[in-house]
């Protein structure tokens, strides 16, 4: 199944017509950055803003974002994301969101677009195990793009 999907993704990229996303294992990182969209499509910044606060995104659990200050309880574990688009390129932001460990090997930040290489992976938050073959990334390729499109709007005042 995976092979089929990967093959499809490759075909899609080659044709650049069908928007089959790049599979996690096929993402190419260059110094931690990902050059192009994982889906071949632009992200939706409104959905990106929502993902900052909920679901498997939940970025503000660890990062403070002044533009989202109406939301309660921003964390302090990671750096503030204010001005992030002035510190990093789009490709770097995409790479950090997809798998920050490519750029910062020791970072505490989870890898949001990876589906292999975990120790005792579980079935979401049930505490039960999962067949590694059934593991899906924390975010979909389009959700990564949505977050990137939101994050590039964050500038210093």
């Amino acid at each position, binding site marked *: 199944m995976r092979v089929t999907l990967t093959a499809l993704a490759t075909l899609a990229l080659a044709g650049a017509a069908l928007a089959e996303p790049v599979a996690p294992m096929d993402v190419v990182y260059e110094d931690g950055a990902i050059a192009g969209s994982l889906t071949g499509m632009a992200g939706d910044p409104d959905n990106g803003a929502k993902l900052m606060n909920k679901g498997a995104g*939940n970025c*503000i*659990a*660890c990062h403070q974002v002044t533009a989202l200050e109406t939301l*309660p*309880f*921003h*964390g*302090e*574990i990671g750096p503030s994301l204010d001005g992030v688009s002035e510190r990093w390129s789009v490709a770097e932001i995409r790479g950090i969101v997809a798998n920050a460990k490519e750029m910062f090997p020791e970072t*505490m930040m*989870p*890898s949001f677009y990876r589906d292999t290489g*975990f*120790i*005792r*992976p*579980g*079935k*979401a*938050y*049930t*505490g*039960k*195990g*999962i067949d590694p073959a059934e*593991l899906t990334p*924390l975010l979909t390729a389009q959700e990564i793009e949505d977050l990137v499109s939101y994050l590039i709007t964050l500038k210093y005042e």
Partner: protein
Amino acid sequence: MRTILTAGSFAVVALLAAPALADPDEDNLVINDELQMVTETAAPAHMEHVDTIYSGWRFRTDETQALQIDDFENPAMIFVDQGMDLFNSVDGTEGKSCASCHEDVAAFAGFHAEMPKVMNGKLVVMEDFINGHRARAMGAEPWKWSGPEMQAMVALIGLQSRGMPMNVKIDGDAAPYWEQGKEMYYTRYGQLELSCANCHEDSYGLMIRADHLSQGQINGFPTYRLKQAKLISRHNRFRGCIRDTRAETFAEGSDEFRALELYVASRSNGLSVETPAVRQ
């Protein structure tokens, strides 16, 4: 009257205190106006990355802290009373209670401070000790690990050591278990790839969403957790933390959690036993 005074004094403290939650606060824990607790001390020599250890009490809000400074306010004490009833209750085929052999529970003073420890070649945690005696001396059925009877008894025995410094042994026959626990402490489990150390060593004092991260000390367990409104066992808390890394967790009462308990307890060495503590 005491409640009103306490609430009043906390209001004053709140006004004077810095608004931002960050590192452990400066509050001093004295229980029942007489028992001075050590909530901050030099880290034991085996801890390589931390200089000072702090009780989780120092990371909690004034409102939560207040519940632990007076046994009449401490909701865990209801369960300790239940533990005392169980201590005196006959159970099992031998017609015995705990009190039949251990006349006075006060004789357990100091025991909890050294647990877990190796006995007869096996790493034994308090729940093992209790169920072992129930089976061998009383002919009684084992209690469920995190069940109310078991945790009431663990809390009752733990309370006999309250105020004494945690002092678990990590060398000699304990060493292999301790090494296993340490390895687990630094392993980044689950799809979120988080180790105990990521939050409780590298990030204590910081906010993760609405939670103020402590050092994850276990010197106050079993702990009355307000959000669950009951006594929570150490292994239950371990299980919850590992589950929250999107991992396949370990079972309560597993050898893995025994080893982790020994290691984490050893990181509390020097802090006062607070059992039963109150947390958020």
